[in-house]
């Protein structure tokens, strides 16, 4: 591995200052499961790694008056084991359980997964489907942005080189919202997503209609996307298999998957249709207390 300096920061402010003082050749590092491989492959050549894994403020999973706050350092294993996640956003644990293998989940953080911004990341769809907000720390202080506006393209986020992700917030109104995560990889274990999708919805008790449907797709475009037309279609039509199938077809038209050695674009289009339908169907079952309800 190419040489670099290594410093551990013990506060967000100190970490940001070190990053600014050494921009653009310093990088924050937490679980390191992506960064070290990126360095080995020459994708990044930092002269300094700023270890943020000991910063207390970035840790923890807790209920606040605004919703469910997840510190950026929460590991996938912590997400999977958290009683609060299980109670309020269990689909997020489903997604974390598909990331890498145990060794990766023990070290890899949900925040780091988002910051990696690889198109196939499994951490984004559920959070996007729950309209999550993220807190960013930089020289100008703290800023909150919607996760849907966080990604710019492959391996690019609004963070730039001198800001860090502090936490993710699932707004109070969306805690317990029926949500389903579906992923298709080439193996059961340790496989990148060919596509992944999260669907969430409420069911209006009076009309039986779906409302505030969200469909977030990963690995089908340069960054995770909302299938906004499909979302609107579900809200506007009687919920059921026919509507969910059509929503899958609409979602596929909003995607721009690639051909690569893992799968063809045409195959990915088929997967979007099928997995979007399944995710909507399961979310609807949850919302209506059906057989797959939690």
């Amino acid at each position, binding site marked *: *591995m*190419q*040489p*670099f*300096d*290594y410093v*551990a920061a013990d506060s967000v402010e100190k970490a940001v200052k070190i990053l600014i003082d050494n921009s653009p050749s310093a990088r924050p*590092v937490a679980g*390191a*499961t992506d960064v*070290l*491989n990126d*360095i*080995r492959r020459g994708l990044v050549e930092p002269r300094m*790694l700023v*270890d943020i*894994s000991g910063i207390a403020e970035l840790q923890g999973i807790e209920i606040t008056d605004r919703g469910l706050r997840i510190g950026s350092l929460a590991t996938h*294993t912590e997400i999977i084991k958290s009683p609060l996640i299980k109670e309020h956003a269990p689909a997020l644990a489903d997604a974390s359980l598909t990331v*890498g*293998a*145990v*060794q*990766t989940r*023990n*070290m890899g953080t949900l925040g780091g997964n988002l910051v990696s911004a690889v198109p196939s990341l499994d951490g984004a769809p559920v959070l996007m489907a729950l309209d999550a907000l993220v807190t960013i720390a930089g020289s100008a202080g703290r800023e909150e942005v919607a996760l849907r506006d966080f990604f710019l393209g492959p391996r690019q986020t609004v963070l730039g080189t001198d800001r860090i992700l502090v936490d993710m917030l699932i707004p109070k109104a969306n805690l317990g919202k029926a949500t389903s995560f579906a992923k298709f990889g080439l193996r*059961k*274990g*340790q496989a990148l997503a060919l596509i992944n999708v999260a669907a969430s919805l409420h069911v209006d008790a009076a009309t039986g209609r779906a409302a505030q449907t969200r469909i977030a797709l990963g690995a089908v475009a340069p960054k995770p996307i909302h299938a906004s037309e499909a979302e609107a279609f579900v809200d506007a039509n009687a919920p059921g298999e026919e509507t969910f199938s059509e929503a899958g077809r609409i979602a596929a038209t909003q995607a721009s998957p690639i051909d690569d050695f893992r799968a063809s674009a045409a195959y990915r289009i088929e997967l979007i249709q099928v997995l979007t339908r399944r995710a909507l169907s399961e979310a609807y079952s949850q919302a209506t207390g059906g057989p797959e309800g939690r």
Partner: protein
Amino acid sequence: MIEVNITVNGEARTAEVPPETTLLTLLRDWGLTGTKLGCDEGDCGACTVLLDGMSVNGCLVLAGRANGCSVSTVEGLSVDGRLHPLQEAFEQHASLQCGFCGPGILMSAKELLDANPSASKSEIRIALSGNLCRCTGYVKIIDAVAEAGAKMAAHGGQSNG
């Protein structure tokens, strides 16, 4: 250079290393070559060790990150010459052929059984999904982990004795 202090299998160790040194490299430099260098990118699990009780890929942990931590490697499994129940079961089932994946698999299995000695075969498969074996096809490995777990459960979770 950075100074790291790590407790390895109960023994305090200190080293001055270049910052880019991985925990895997450091352990092997210390002569603990049971932990294997396989893919060096976190896919194969041959370098699995326990960092404060959690399985990690030694190739994806910087030595500096392990500073102040406790690390368990395959060399620490047996105690006073007595094999760990996992090692006994692997021997009885002839679970390994070339053996390269063995140290990592034993440590992943230890993490699982320490928390849940009664783990089902399905849970064992999930726990070992980050450990690749190119010889055996996993059946004898999973059988051995299940048997070791049963033995540990019968002894109230005691690993040795």
